[in-house]
């Protein structure tokens, strides 16, 4: 690969073109890990860097993405009565997802590059994960122009105005989804948006999600096993708990995502579900608590959204509190607020806002006991 390395060194923008430095740097470091060496402090460094960490998240998303593509085809074939084999179902879904992924990356990366260029910063790789997450959590029928608007909003308002990756306080992918949710509510809820049957013009075919059915006061028609496997209507890639669990395993093994957050989200949701079981006021409250883990975006949110390290609580104790409350609020919203069938997105966004406060309180405890120690020693010295 020496020729490529030499070519990169040859085309390095200098003089009049040196303002293109950020763009050049982004492509150069994509192709080659830089040859920069340590200058001071620790002379050797861990092999992991931001690119590697983010790419692990992208790899963890792949099982859910592949399953989601197949499920698009599967749901459409059920809705239209078409007799497709599994490969064609997957191909159908792939063709539906591909434009969404391309649009998301193109719009998002263009904005990222532009901001990096203006600020003379290096382009941050954080969007590689965000750009894939956004098309995975919206309905398959979302028009591309809406998706583009949502991505632009998420990257600019959700991230760049605060200074870019690492400075934002809201999860950008969820900002995009919230933008769509509140701006185009008719495209984001109801029974008709979850199945890619718009090509046939057969609007009448129902594709209700379990959450939608529950919000309407019905018992979910899908079985728990269907929901575990993910063969139900829903946002493009959030349905299969098994595919999400595969990604979760990778994230936990590599240590990229916090096991404390993941575990505590499920704990919080489970405890809230049990509490409602005990009250048992209506059918929704009587729903077995583990149904909440299987329905909607709960599992996807717990594994990929709540664990976003930038917007989560940063202290270990804080992570427990943060996760427990996300799970609890998500179930609370689902059961008690019929206006929003899905509570996970709002719950995570709400706790994103609360995370700095949680951390502040946790760190304050540490400060307090250090101060106490100093006072105790001071008294001792005084008495002695």
């Amino acid at each position, binding site marked *: 690969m*020496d020729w490529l*390395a030499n070519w990169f060194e040859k085309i390095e923008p200098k003089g009049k073109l040196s303002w293109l430095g950020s763009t050049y740097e982004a492509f150069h470091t994509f*192709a080659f*890990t*830089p040859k*920069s060496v340590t200058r001071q402090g620790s*002379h050797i460094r861990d092999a992991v860097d931001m690119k590697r960490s983010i790419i692990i998240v992208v790899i963890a998303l792949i099982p859910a993405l592949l399953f989601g593509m197949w499920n698009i085809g599967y749901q459409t074939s059920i809705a239209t009565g078409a007799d497709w084999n599994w490969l064609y179902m997957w191909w159908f879904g792939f063709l539906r997802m591909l434009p969404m992924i391309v649009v998301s990356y193109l719009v998002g990366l263009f904005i990222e590059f532009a901001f990096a260029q203006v600020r003379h910063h290096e382009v941050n790789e954080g969007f590689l994960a965000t750009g894939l997450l956004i098309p995975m959590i919206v309905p398959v029928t979302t028009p591309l122009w809406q998706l583009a608007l949502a991505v632009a909003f998420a990257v600019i308002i959700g991230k760049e105005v605060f200074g870019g990756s690492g400075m934002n306080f809201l999860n950008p992918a969820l900002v995009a989804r919230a933008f769509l949710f509140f701006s185009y509510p008719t495209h984001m809820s109801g029974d008709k948006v979850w199945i890619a049957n718009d090509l046939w013009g057969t609007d009448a075919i129902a594709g209700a999600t379990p959450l939608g059915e529950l919000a309407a006061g019905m018992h979910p028609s899908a079985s728990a096993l269907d929901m575990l496997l993910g063969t139900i209507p829903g946002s493009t890639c959030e349905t299969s708990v098994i595919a999400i669990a595969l990604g979760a395993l990778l994230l936990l093994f590599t240590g990229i995502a916090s096991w404390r957050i993941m575990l505590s989200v499920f704990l919080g949701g489970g405890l809230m579900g049990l509490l409602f079981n005990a009250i048992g006021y209506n059918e929704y409250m009587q729903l077995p608590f583990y149904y909440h883990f299987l329905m909607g975006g709960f599992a996807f949110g717990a594994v990929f959204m709540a664990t976003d*390290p930038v917007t989560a609580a940063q202290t270990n104790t804080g*992570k427990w509190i943060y996760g427990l409350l996300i799970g609890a609020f998500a179930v609370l919203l689902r059961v008690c607020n019929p206006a929003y069938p899905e509570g996970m997105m709002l719950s995570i966004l709400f706790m994103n806002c609360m995370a700095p406060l949680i951390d502040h309180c946790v760190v304050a405890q540490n400060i307090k006991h250090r101060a106490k120690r100093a006072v105790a020693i001071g008294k001792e010295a005084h008495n002695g």
Partner: protein
Amino acid sequence: MNIHIKKGLDLPLDGVAKKQRIDLRTSVSCIAVKPTDVLGFTPRLLVAVGDEVCAGQRLLVDKHDERIALTSPVDGIVKSIVRGEKRRLEAVIVERDIAQKNTSEVINHTNLSTDSPCWWMIKERPFGCIANPDHHPKGIFISLLDTNPLAPDMQYVMQGRENDFAMGLHVLAEKAPVHLCIPHGYPPPTTDSAIHIHTVEGPHPAGNIGTQVAHISPINKGEYVWTVGAQDVATIGHWIATGEYRPERIVSVGGPSARSPHYYQLIVGSQLSLICDAQLINNGYPALSPSSTNTTRIISGSVLNGTTVASNGFLGMYDQQITLIEEGDHYEFMGWLMPGLKKFSFSKTFLSGFTGLINKMSVPALFGNIMPRYTFNTNLHGSVRPFLFTGQFERIFPFDIYPLQLIKACIVGDIELQEKLGIYEVEPEDFALCEFIDPSKTEIQSIIREALEVLRKETI
């Protein structure tokens, strides 16, 4: 008290020194006294080039406190005075004079004061500067355990100096309570009841003084502790017993680029050219990797917090190891995507994390010997980014401190918050592992050092 450290990381570097000493005490002719190694010391020169000096004679005194001095380690002649930018005094180089004999008769010193040529060996925390004789430390901490990568085995290094060491402990105990940390299961080197003995076990940074102080008696604002290297305690003991100032240092020389790693007996500040000539893999040896320029970095100290020196440079005043490691100034194609069987990472994001785990579960018999030999070099392995990931530092930082929050307080220069978060309990070296594992490649040790320097100058 037994200190059991669980949070930490031992780096599996190649090139551990063989237990074999080569005596270079009389072979090395040039020896440097480097005021730049001694924090908080503003040098004023007392000698000129060509002056004859004897071991223990004052060469430099501190401008702010003339009681504190740096002394000549050997009998000889001042060969040169090295100045850096803005005429900053960097080193006084003394050429050993073999013919000249120390004629002074045996004097028995009874206590350690600033008059002693050994005073500079005592460091003070917070800040890690030279000890202020007016301060009353709440303890003097000495560690007989060094857990840095490729660090010398202190048990081996102290062999034959037990009496000097015990004498040194005894005289230090007159200044303040002495806390001696020894490895778990190691026989106590002294029965003196004035010495508090603690046992320490666990991975690096268990051997760091900062870790030990934090577990025994953390430093509060306004408190001081003194620390002395174990080998320097023996030097102090020897000086007390015989009146002879002989600052010897047994150093381990190792690292992936060392030809035959073993121990050397040196004088503090010895020139390293003899060692480098013998150890550097250069001519006749195959390059470590074809794309590398195959240069070697010479580090006085450990790979985690040592100082880069030239091949004709000098041993640092407080260092007890030399590490030789390949410069990693080469590109790697798609490095972020490669499986990385030979890459060492705390994060398990490379295949090496998986094979390492298999090895740990002691099932390599099933897979054969797939445990890789990691390649370590000085490459940064990535570009500098803002902090994104959290919770990593806490896994290897055995202090009751929130590391990320403290680092951020240091970056923004919020002194009040730094104090609240425990800045006085740490030194840059305590953050060395955080800096090593940090995926955003921030220079954490310099951030901490700069913050501490601001505080130190405010305290003066």
